[in-house]
């Protein structure tokens, strides 16, 4: 329920490792809410989320350590440089990184000269790429939850992100994502859920 509206009900799905789940639906159909429920940021009105058989409410930090969530907002502080932003994001998530790795991740997303630029001077697309650079450092993380990862990206960056997702799935992790863009990602077994019209896999 969102306010007074019922967004979706009777949604049941399982996502094993090495699979990709794409959630589609019109604006306002509840895609973001579903992702946030999966992360534990939002409590479902009814039902529960389980990771490895256990309710995530009980697992708390254990679950969160195995999760990367990139939401609508970039989670970038304007007054910090891209490198600082990335470093802090990783430390908070419990991922140990060396400065060289930070530089490498930013380079991979096409932000080679931007490590020491304050995020304020970066364009919208560049900020999105800083946010997504975290994925390059999250290869050990078994669950990626991405809300509209391709927004504001140019073609090259989109290819890069698609590649990262495909590689991660190939490594046996699970990835859930939503997108308006029609392009599919070629990776292992893929499930699809369309909100607003019932599940279809």
């Amino acid at each position: 329920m969102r306010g007074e509206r019922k967004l979706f009900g009777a949604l049941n799905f399982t996502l094993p490792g090495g699979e990709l789940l794409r959630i589609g639906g019109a604006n306002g159909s509840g895609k973001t809410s579903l992702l946030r429920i999966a992360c534990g940021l939002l409590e479902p009105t009814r039902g529960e989320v389980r990771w490895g058989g256990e309710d995530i409410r009980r697992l708390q930090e254990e679950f969160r350590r195995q999760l990367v969530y990139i939401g609508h907002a970039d989670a970038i502080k304007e007054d910090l440089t891209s490198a600082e932003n990335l470093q802090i994001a990783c430390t908070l998530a419990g991922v140990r990184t060396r400065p060289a790795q930070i530089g490498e991740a930013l380079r991979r997303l096409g932000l080679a000269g931007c490590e020491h630029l304050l995020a304020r001077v970066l364009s919208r697309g560049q900020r999105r790429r800083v946010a997504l650079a975290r994925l390059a450092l999250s290869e050990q993380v078994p669950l990626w939850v991405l809300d509209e990862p391709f927004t504001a990206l140019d073609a090259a960056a989109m290819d890069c992100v698609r590649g990262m997702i495909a590689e991660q799935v190939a490594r046996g992790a699970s990835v859930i994502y939503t997108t308006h863009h029609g392009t599919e990602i070629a990776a292992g077994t893929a499930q699809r859920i369309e909100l607003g019209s019932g599940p279809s896999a």
Partner: protein
Amino acid sequence: MTAALRCVIVRDLLLAARRSSDVLTVLLFFVIVVSLFPLGVGPEPALLRTIAPGVIWVAALLASMLALQRMFASDHADGTLEQMLLGATPLGITVAAKVFAHWVTSGLPLVLISPVLALQFDFPQELLGVLALSLALGTPVLSLIGAIGAALTLGLRGGGALLSLLVLPLYVPVLIIGAGASEAAASGLGGHAQLLLLGALLVFAWAFAPWATAVALRISVE
């Protein structure tokens, strides 16, 4: 876990340093409010000497409340708060680190400048230490309790005024004991009892407020 703690504190201090105007405006507000009182009640030295601790404490309360808005609002707006909620460290600890950094940028300056302001009121010099110490113990409590209010009112309209309404009643004991310390010292009884009470309040708040704030944050981010 200590790496994350240090990370949060350094981050917040770095952000405050790069946006130093936020910190300075609060400090200036404190100074101005304290200076308004003599203009309101008259310059008679005996009167000013009596009301000095109370005035400084009330001004510290108000300044502290003004600074509270800063604690979570910008992180909430750009999405970094959500990431903290999904972080590897328990949220209570992250919150404690944030409150500490916030106190360093809002409470500590007040503590440092209070002796200067007290001299404006012709407050006896030997008692300045008690006043500063009472503020040093009390302002962290204000930050800790205020954090709960800031977390509860995150993103709501009515913002600052609503926050004040929620938090000021909870500030009352700190005000009474804090101002009481200087008054007791001024009347020759020594402010030790009050300072110890403040210390106890600080320990109590340090133990429980971050956890309550974490609960409130999860509720507000939903």
